[in-house]
């Protein structure tokens, strides 16, 4: 494969099939970069991808130096979409700087956070874009091997990726001497096996190595000692899917989209009690109100907005006073919540906040790898405390104890799971204190969810 053939393939295809499908339900507020080909091309057709300028970015990148590619990403101010928002370019820079014969690129497609499903759509809708993004990452840091860690719950995404890799290899896009350079790159798919913790980057690497998915202590960071003890970058699906456009259009172009500190677009997945649920890609900086009432089409029949859960089981909960808060990496922190990876769940009057927080804690306790003491024991104890509250078995003193232990677990745990698991508790107590008082003092669950000594409706 070389530039000429690639252009020829594109032109030949466009000559005979000039028309692509128009995606349905694109909201006017949307700007599709990551989702540029979503529902536009046949995801199983490499030719259609090529016709949409596919594999032109890697071809362009290969004409740049590794440093220049990294700099372009730094310039774009792209921040990782996996939840933490670490600057992607910086991560690549570290990995480039560590010298080693072998380095790895990992695409994190474990998407285990409940209420989150954009990565699935991105992969199912445009697998080649991810492959190309990984190739660029590989070239930039000097890796020759990439892994995509897909959760086994996403068989379609895995199958489409597998076909895409096969097709790209067949065409000589993946493999050795890519675009007649001396860049070699191969990609292997690895399936998860039902462990949320394997979305955590170090546990994920353990899993690829064939071990129990136990998190590793950091430092050393993966960029230094990662997969098979080699320098490794690990990026979220959506992060990787942003790369091709950044290389094609330049970091400057990308930087102008979104807000100053959170550049670019973000794909959100909306679910719960709103009318129009699903995924949508929006420049960073949209408010919660717009998400719910504009894009989400408002609340469902009979539902009144009560709360928005963002950032999943380690995120937080917002109430109606926060409707005008902007959703990006930093704004929500002031309100004890996070954007996380972009899952937004809307709750109504029939949902109990404490029951939901308890449900999060159950999830965290179930998914704790069990390696470090605070997370292993603490998440279960926190769950027990919340459970007591939902059963009317607690006192206000216990609420203090709950807060105290939440602090302990987050400050002493080994990895992100334990460190963030108590977070929903903080925002729930802050924004829904009355609901705690109801449960604890009055033994009442107004939503009618909890099995309280006195049930239903309250007064």
């Amino acid at each position: 494969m070389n530039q000429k053939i690639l252009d020829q393939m594109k032109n030949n295809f466009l000559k005979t099939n000039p028309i692509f499908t128009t995606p349905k339900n694109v909201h006017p507020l949307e700007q599709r970069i990551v989702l540029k080909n979503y529902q536009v091309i046949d995801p199983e057709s490499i030719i259609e991808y090529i016709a949409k300028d596919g594999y032109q970015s890697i071809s362009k990148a290969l004409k740049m130096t590794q440093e220049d590619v990294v700099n372009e990403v730094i310039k774009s101010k792209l921040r990782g979409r996996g939840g933490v928002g670490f600057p992607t370019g910086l991560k690549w820079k570290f990995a480039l700087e560590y010298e080693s014969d072998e380095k790895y690129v990992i695409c994190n497609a474990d998407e285990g956070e409940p209420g989150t499903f954009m990565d699935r759509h991105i992969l199912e809708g445009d697998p080649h874009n991810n492959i190309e993004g990984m190739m660029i990452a590989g070239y930039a840091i000097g890796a020759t091997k990439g892994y995509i860690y897909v959760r086994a719950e996403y068989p379609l995404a895995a199958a489409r990726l597998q076909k895409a890799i096969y097709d790209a290899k067949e065409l000589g896009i993946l493999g050795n001497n890519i675009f007649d350079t001396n860049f070699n790159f191969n990609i292997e798919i690895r399936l998860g096996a039902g462990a949320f913790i394997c979305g955590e980057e170090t546990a994920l690497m353990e899993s690829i190595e064939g071990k129990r998915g136990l998190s590793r202590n950091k430092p050393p960071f993966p960029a230094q000692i990662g997969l098979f003890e080699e320098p490794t970058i690990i990026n979220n699906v959506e992060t990787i899917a942003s790369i091709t456009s950044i290389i094609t259009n330049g970091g400057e172009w990308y930087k102008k989209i979104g807000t100053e500190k959170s550049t670019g677009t973000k794909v959100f997945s909306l679910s719960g009690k709103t009318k129009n649920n699903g995924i949508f890609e929006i420049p960073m900086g949209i408010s919660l109100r717009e998400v719910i009432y504009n894009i989400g089409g408002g609340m469902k029949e009979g539902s009144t907005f009560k709360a928005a859960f963002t950032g999943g089981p380690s995120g937080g909960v917002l109430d109606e006073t926060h409707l005008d808060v902007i959703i990006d990496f930093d704004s929500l922190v002031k309100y004890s919540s996070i954007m996380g990876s972009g899952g937004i769940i809307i709750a109504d009057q029939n949902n109990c906040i404490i029951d939901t927080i308890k449900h999060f804690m159950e999830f965290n306790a179930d998914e704790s790898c069990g390696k470090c003491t605070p997370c292993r024991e603490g998440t279960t104890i926190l769950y027990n405390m919340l459970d007591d509250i939902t059963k009317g078995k607690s006192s206000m003193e216990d609420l203090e104890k709950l807060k105290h232990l939440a602090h302990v677990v987050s400050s002493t745990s080994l990895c992100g799971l334990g460190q963030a698991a108590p977070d929903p508790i903080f925002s729930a107590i802050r924004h829904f204190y009355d609901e705690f008082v109801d449960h604890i003092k009055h033994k009442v669950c107004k939503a009618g969810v909890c099995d309280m000594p006195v049930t239903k409706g309250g007064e």
Partner: protein
Amino acid sequence: MEKLIKFKIDGVEYNAKENETVLDVCKKNDIFIPTFCHDDRFASEAACRMCLVETSNSNKLMTSCTLIPTEGVEIQTNSDIVLEARQEVLKLTWASHPNDCVVCEADGNCKLQDYMYYYDIPSEKEYNIEVRDFEIDDSNKFFYIDPSKCILCGKCINVCDQLVGVGALSFNERGKDTYVSFAFNKGMDFSTCVSCGNCVSVCPTGALVEKSHTKFRTKETRKVRTTCPYCGVGCQFNLVLKGDTVVRVDPINTTPNEGLLCIKGKFAYRYINHPNRLKSPLIKKNGVFYEATWEEAYTLIVNKISQAKKTYGSSAFAGLTSAKCTNEENYLFQKFMRIIFGTNNIDHCARLCHASTVTGLATTLGSGAMTNSISEVKNHDVIFVIGSNTTETHPVIGSFMRQAKKSGAKIIVAEPRKIDLAKEADLFVQIKPGTNVALLNGMMNVIYNENLYDKEFIRKRTENFDDFIKVVKQYPPERCAKICGCSVDGIIEAARIYAAGEKAGIYYAMGITQHSNGTNHVKSIANLAMLTGNIGKESSGINPLRGQNNVQGACDVGGLPDVYPGYQKVHLPEVKAKFEKAWGVKLSDEIGHSLLSHITHGAKDHSIKFLYIMGENPIVSDPDITNVKEALNNMNFIVVQDIFLTETAQYADVVLPASSYAEKDGTFTNTERRVQRIRKALDPIGDSKPDWVIIQELMTLLGYPQHFNHPSEIMDEIASLSPIYAGINYDRIDKIGLQWPVHNKNHPGTKYLHKDKFSRGLGLFTPIEYLGAKELPDDEYPLTLTTGRVLYHFHTRTMTGKCTRINELVPNNFIEINQITAKKYKLDDMEEVIIKSRRGETTAEVHITDIIGDNIIFMPFHFADGANMLTNVVLDETCDIPELKVAACEIVKKS
């Protein structure tokens, strides 16, 4: 210059070396940091979170076990935040832990308990979580796992996997359901566990606990540091005693074992307090032993010696000294024989194991011992194991080999059986017993022809290359493969892998030495190492693994018929003069008889009339037992000094009760030439006395007064007479032993031999032809018998056989044969059969395995009237080692 990082801990400045963690620095400077999961021997996982500290450059608490300090950083190990974090982590650890310290076996030996106390954590639970409730797995004979008491620090798993290299344990399930178990949680039958107990040693709580024989609380115990009495590794451990009873053994993390032990070291200590220990002297009258006083026994012995001396003269005496006794005792024993009896007829079972090493390496290199140190095992890039079942016979060295493999070393194994190490090896060459020389010549042929040899080394450091290579050229791999019964490729690949090693080590044991041309086998090994220049460097050399705890030392201090202490030849006039002067007596310059040439097989010419045996059991250990029995029956008088009434002691006229290693001070020299202390932990059992005391008292009674107050004074005398021990005294070896040669009191000892120059000057290449064993299978005896050791027993079972649980693992004699051999004889697994050879017969249980070749029988040599009823007493001409490794035999069905 090494870069040092300056930083502060609790306001005081410290330096850290590159890659040193904050915890490392704290430990060095006695700053207390609590830890559960950390162990200096493997990378920290930062799981327990006990070691959290505050740092000035992060608002997060960091685990000091993984934290590498940066220049100028300030660490707080004692702030309120840190203390609270520790308390909380403890409360969380405690939350699900059973609250039963009062009845817990680990009470007083539990880190959780200690830290709870130090950090004022009440035993009342602060947090509500279900207490761990798992089934106890007590399928192991020596210890049990109670996962309910486990705090999931993971040390047991790491020790088993990363250090021992067995990997029998693992975490199961996850989160709060996590527990530690053997594979499938189905007990020992499904497990690869070898019961080394290293997991038990590292467990900080009561989760992994030895099944104790004696009820004891840790506060009632005391500890005495000493050296393991089993194999030549010489592991360091503490004997834990309640009163005068040993209740536990705790390994020490130091040279050479680095905190590891094997099943024998850890659990086979019960013999010390065994009721059958000899407690008073015994005198035989009309075939029956009667208890006697020391005085009666001594009087009888003194009289008999005087009589015999008058009647037969010096040459009728012989003494067997002991590889199980201390250096000091062996020294005194040879002095006793040489001075009192005027004879050099002294030998011991080194004759049976490494006599050929001593002669073979002495002639080619100049000294007959391991050239490298045990600590160098981990750093080889190639390990060539031939004629050694290392993981069973020297388990801790076997573990270090596995560690080497984990860090990238290649392992080649050449053996008649597919031993455990062979299964893990990069290359296994299965050869017929007794064909080592063919294999080695074949490998050297390949190395020569493929130009993989080290010309520079050969030119500078060796001689006689041309003669040697002429013979090697006669051994193309095709020819050798036929002799060995292996593939040509196997030989070629072994040659290439070995020759590619920059730091290659050869490890061998009795598979090389116990042949009628054993010396040649050893010389052939020396040829291979010199051909590739893999000797005289760190982690590069020839390593004969010595079997018994002090077989190296017994030889070093003169327990041999041809040398005085320090391998000084008895027949050399200047040597004789030196010892005559030192001891103030006339000495014989006649080289003595070796063990088999006249002593235990002297029946025919009856030249030995009086035999003095200290801690040896030839009736089990020597080849052709029928012959040995006859020899002993023909003696006029036999004295046996031992801790039990052994099979050999039954033949004695007087039996003297000796003290075990736990009841005395002294030194053992391990296989890496390291002289290490043993320490008295309890008073001699009954009326028994340490061997050195007995010998000294007899010498005094016999007119050569000896009045050593303490074994250290004997060591001083050894040092004054033996140049290789010259620099050794008890003060210097108090903590860590010294490796000989130690030329003077300032010399640091010798880590590896032959650096820059061989002990003999130039290394001598020797042309070695393949000769084969003396007795090969024929129509009458169509099978080949080979012998060896098993993990669970030591030598003639005098000690391990008294430890019931150990003995139960291998309670009786057995043979290993493969399916094809079994079919031929229509044998079933576990069936009892008779094995016959030209020397005699024995019975054994059939074990059918796939690790052995067709028509070959393996039998352990530990059992009385077992393998050695069959073995062949044909001797190597140069060193008198018998051909224990090959004999022709036949199987006869019992019914």
